[in-house]
């Protein structure tokens, strides 16, 4: 028998549940293994060759996962995209030059206009390895497609992890979403799909499916606690909450720790370029983390974190390599160090230089979020003729009807006690709507100032 491109342990997990679909239908590992073989046969019948780049339109579901593993075992390069991504779908298909498209929900496999041609694809083909393309949602310009060797990505899961019931929450087309699928299914856990990411629906899913792990983002945790839904459900099965993808504000972290006294809170650090890295948090209330030294080397240059990891991507499809000559990836994240621990301060690109003095948006956001009537806050820089840049704050408030001048006065007074004067926002904008992008990241993209 010919060795498989990737070894999957699914058949060995037998009749244990693998995936609980959003509608509650459960698929066992045995079924998962059988269906993967069926879909592989389908791919071969249709003439999908190893090395083909395939757009996989899907979200967490048994079908999406079956396609994902079937495509990989056939040596394809999978380009995941969640349904309803609009123009992003065309961009991804175009940049990745996909020659096939799978729409998991509709059970569709059709050919596309691309040629699956790229010098980096050729490197993968040489190694007979399956691929994964993850697009980073950069704040400027075209999204960058990071090509991964799936065997490298999967290598860190080879040591048998704990089998836990995990919610598929982070986006399926993000590196963190793929990470959720891999660490859950490769260790024999249960991947639980949620019908939506609405706080009440998520809480209901956590309760009824007895979910043990919730991998999520700080802004969603903030929204979850603000919604008050946590108290309406029995979430006692929840053992681990992981958060990452953006900065966690210290006051939010403390509220989460209080709201989930029995859960362990773990900060994750990852990026499209090197995958989700394993890390340990110093404690539930702490943002200090340590990385697993076996998984990566890290160093700090000029205050910025650099990483060298075996799980790094091969390169971008549509941008120059970001690696230094000796293989270090410059994350652009400013960090503080304490022994072997580090704390992430924020992306250097988010830094606001007010008359030459540095302001980290997260520091101001943290301070704003300690004010009880501030539900959420996003801080960003805007060009200013006098100072080069000034600090703007968009505030979601419980008091949208109050006089804005009174709100501004109260905020400034509060902040003056905590921050240096130049860090106090010069402009406040109030809203009663949420401040998250559809990808659950704080939206720091500045609204254009009206001329």
């Amino acid at each position: 028998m010919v060795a498989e491109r990737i070894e999957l342990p699914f058949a060995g997990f037998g009749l244990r549940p693998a995936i609980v679909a959003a509608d509650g239908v459960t698929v066992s590992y045995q079924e998962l293994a059988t269906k993967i073989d069926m879909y592989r046969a389908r791919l071969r019948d249709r003439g999908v060759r190893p090395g083909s780049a395939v757009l996989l339109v899907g979200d967490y579901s048994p079908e999406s996962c079956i396609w994902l593993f079937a495509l990989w075992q056939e040596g394809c390069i999978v380009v995941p995209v969640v349904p309803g991504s609009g123009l992003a779908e065309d961009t991804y298909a175009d940049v990745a030059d996909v020659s096939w498209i799978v729409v998991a929900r509709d059970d569709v496999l059709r050919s596309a206009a691309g040629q699956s041609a790229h010098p980096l694809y050729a490197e993968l083909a040489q190694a007979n390895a399956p691929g994964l393309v993850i697009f980073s949602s950069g704040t400027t310009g075209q999204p960058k497609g990071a090509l991964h060797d799936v065997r490298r990505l999967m290598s860190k899961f080879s040591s048998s992890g704990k089998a836990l019931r995990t919610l598929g929450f982070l986006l399926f087309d993000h590196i963190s979403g793929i990470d959720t699928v891999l660490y859950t299914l490769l260790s024999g856990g249960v991947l639980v799909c949620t019908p939506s990411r609405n706080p009440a629906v998520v809480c209901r899913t956590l309760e009824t499916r007895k979910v043990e792990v919730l991998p999520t983002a700080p802004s969603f945790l903030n929204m979850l606690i603000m919604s008050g839904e946590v108290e309406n459900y029995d979430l006692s099965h929840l053992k681990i909450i992981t958060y990452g993808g953006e900065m966690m504000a210290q006051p939010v972290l403390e509220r989460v720790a209080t709201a989930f006294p029995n859960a362990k809170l773990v900060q994750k650090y990852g990026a499209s370029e090197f995958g989700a890295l394993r890390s340990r948090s110093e404690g539930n209330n702490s943002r200090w983390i340590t990385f697993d030294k076996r998984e990566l080397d890290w160093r700090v240059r000029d205050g910025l974190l650099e990483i060298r990891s075996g799980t790094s991507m091969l390169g971008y499809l549509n941008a120059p390599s970001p690696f230094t000559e000796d293989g270090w990836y410059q994350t652009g994240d400013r960090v503080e160090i304490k022994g072997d621990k580090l704390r992430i301060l924020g992306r250097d690109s988010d830094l606001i230089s007010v008359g030459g003095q540095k302001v980290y948006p997260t520091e101001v956001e943290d301070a704003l979020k300690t004010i009880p009537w501030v539900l959420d806050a996003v801080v960003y820089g805007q060009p200013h003729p006098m100072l080069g840049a000034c600090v703007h704050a968009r505030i979601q408030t419980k008091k949208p009807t109050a006089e804005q001048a009174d709100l501004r006065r109260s905020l400034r007074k509060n902040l003056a006690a905590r921050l240096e004067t130049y860090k106090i926002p010069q402009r406040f904008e109030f809203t009663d709507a949420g401040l998250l992008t559809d990808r659950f990241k704080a939206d720091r993209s500045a609204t254009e100032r009206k001329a």
Partner: protein
Amino acid sequence: MKHLSYESALESVRAAVREINDFRAEGDALSLDEDAVLFGDGSALDSVGLVQVVMAAEAQLADATGVELVLASEAAMSRKRSPYRSLRNLAEYAVEMAGADATV
């Protein structure tokens, strides 16, 4: 937009100064006198402080008139007679900007 009178412009500018005084240390409070030096010789205000006053004034004027005036610009900064010299100058500049806005 509706006509912005000097009096209402000054009122907005003063409200802005009050807003900023609210969080400045007691000894550092800015004068509400329309002819006191706001930014320049003898003023306690640094550039960050000035931007706070100017942007608070923009916000106050927007609250009062519903129109967003820009009081900090290269053009304003390069004027021979600085619009930031006193509250009177700033209010006059706001009136001028509102007038320019009306002719668009």
